[in-house]
């Protein structure tokens, strides 16, 4: 029997992985992927909670919206990364240090 805690643990792992990727990886695309992971962790939580803890479908609806939003965000994000690549000819995150005090 799959319990709530299993889902929560998985989502926690997803979350931590996502954060770690965002912090650690140097590729902009990888960082965007990290964002997706974090969002998916949340979406998973919603669904799991909706299934186990509550009697409504709010969580399910929420996770659907998350998927849509994540897609939109990824689209915009990739567009910006492409723009960045066109200008800098790299997607290495450390190149984005032009703006500073």
């Amino acid at each position, binding site marked *: 029997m799959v319990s709530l805690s299993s889902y929560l643990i998985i989502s926690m792992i997803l979350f931590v992985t996502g954060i770690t990727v965002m912090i*650690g990886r140097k590729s902009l695309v990888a*960082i965007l992927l990290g964002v997706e992971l974090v969002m998916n962790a949340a979406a998973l939580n919603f669904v799991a909670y909706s299934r186990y803890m509550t009697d409504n479908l709010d969580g399910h609806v929420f996770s659907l919206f998350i998927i849509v939003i994540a897609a939109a965000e990824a689209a915009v994000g990739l567009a910006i990364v492409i723009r960045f690549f066109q200008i800098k000819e790299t997607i290495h995150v450390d190149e984005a240090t032009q703006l500073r005090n």
Partner: protein
Amino acid sequence: MEYSIGSIAPIFLAPVLAFVINAFFGRKLPRNGDWVAVLGVFISFIFSARIFGDFVFGNFATDYYIHKTFTWFDLSFADQIWKVDLGIYIDNMAAIMLLMVSGVATLIHLFSTWYMDHDHRHGRFFTFLPLFTSGMLGLVLSDNLLALFMFWEVMGFCSYSLIGIYYEKEEAGNASIKAFMTTRVGDVFLLLGLVAVWMVIGSVTYTDIYAAIANGSFEGKTVLGISLATFAGFCMFLGAMGKSAQFPLHVWLPDAMMGPTPGSALIHAATMVAAGVYLSLRMYPLMVIGDLTTFIAVIGAITAFGAATIALVQTDIKAVLAFSTISQLGYMMIGVGVGSYNAAFMHLITHAVFKACLFLSAGSVIHSIHEQQMPKMGGLRKKLPYTFIAMLCCSLAIAGVPFFSGFVSKDRILGDALYWGFMAGQNPMLAIVPILGFAGAFLTAFYMFRMMFLTFFGKPRDQHIYDHAHDEHLSLTSNVPLLILTVFTLGFWYAGSLTGQGFVKVMGAKTEWFKILVEAPDVKKFADSKSKITPLVEPTTVTEKLPVAVYDHQTGYAGPNPDDHKIHTAHVVGAAASVVIAFSGIFLAFLMYVKGSVKSPRSKFPGFVRTLQNRYYFDHVYVDIIIKKGLLGLNRFLAWVDMGLYDRYAVDGWAKVNRVMFKIAKWFDNVIIDAVGVDGTGVAVNLFNLVLRIVQSGKIQFYFIMLIVVLGSYIWTLNF
């Protein structure tokens, strides 16, 4: 006798009016308005003379006084009553002072019209001279310490202006500041003493202070652990020391001769320096209960002797007179200290007369030959016969030769001092006071006649100067004032007897008038007088005529007891000694400077002579060490601390702190992230590197780390 305010006020107001007229219109008036000044002072002389006449010849009572007050300003609100009354207080002493001040001042003004005739500061001089006089007259008239202080300061200002009248000369400017500042040292203490008395006793009117002393209000009151009477008396005496040029605040007086000679005459004789002694006399009861008399006597003795020694080596005729003034003021203070109240006051008057005359004579000499240095004079008695007569009489007076006024007054002081020092059972060390007094008297006789001989006798040392000296003619403005003053250097005016010791009486019933009329304030008589603390109806006239009392020393004074035969002995011994000392001093001067049979011992003590010439290095210590090195150094240091240190670092430092904070923030971004983080050595990033085995980090990611860390810490803080 009733006095309306109109018969008293002109004494003070006439010279003030003269000042105002001269200040505003002096330049437009003929002769720059000098006649206005003379007239103003003369009017006050007329009114003073009337009061003097009434007091001395009309009433002839020791306790008669006039006291009128008016409210100056009033701070009363609801049930708090506090107001400041000023008033006029004339007793015998004040009446005598008024006559002396206005009389001497009139003559000095008259003389000045001649002396200053072609001077380019003529107008300015005659603006301040009447103000100066009015300051002194106001001081004498006032019934309380506050008004006294105000006039006291006005005189300080006038002396500043008169001494610095030739301000284009460097020394004049310095001398004027020195005069003002040195006296100001005393003044602020006088103010302090005044404030202390006022706030504890509730009034600074003389009568109220006397009443407070009689009622014991001073007992048990302390200021900073010292009894109030001692504190206040000491502060006031410091004020008196400043104005009356007592050691160690005497340094300004010699320099005060930078002004025109008649101005010096006014400062040295009738007005400013007299104010200090006058204050000491007014506050004599306070000095007594404050146990300050011994201190005063010792200070007086040191001043009297020390100034006399310095006078020995002076070559400038005015400098000799200046130091003699200090010395004589020392005698007056000895008089105050030893309880010789009457004689001290008499010496104030006699000294004023002969010192004014001496200065005017010196002025006459200087005006005639345009030279102040005595070594360049000599033989002038033929050229300046009237001046010579005047100066000789005055010198005899100051030396204490019988029949002259100085003998009467100074020898009474010395007699009392002799008794006080040797016979009154005091600390034997205090015998130093009469010893210094007599030694000073000898020196006085010597240096005065040194001056006389160098100036008027012998052969001209500088023939050129002698030849160009103007001959003297009798004229109202140039030498009649001298001669008038000369007349009053005779002793019988004051003593009523030729010798001053009561042997040959010439004035009948009024013989010894001075001695009878002037006595130390008997505080007990004031015990019931109305206090100022209660509101008075204004204008109030408290003219009281108390029963005539025979001169009778009350117990409670440290002064000599007239019943004691010892004092008589002391006076006789003192008089005899004085005469001997005076003549021996004159004789020694004669031997040294006319006969030349005694060599001056100067060459044997070059070091001591140099010390004397440098006036015991007081000026050096004050100006060069205390002021220039100490005070200015401290000032510069503090100013540097203020702007260079405090303002720059502590105040502007706040801006710097902000900038540093900003730099830290920037450094965080740049160094930690770029240098440290990118190179893989930064602490935070490096930790992640180790854990995650991911090689590098970047700026955006640093933001992430910060965010996570802070968020984590928020959660941690909130939940545990």
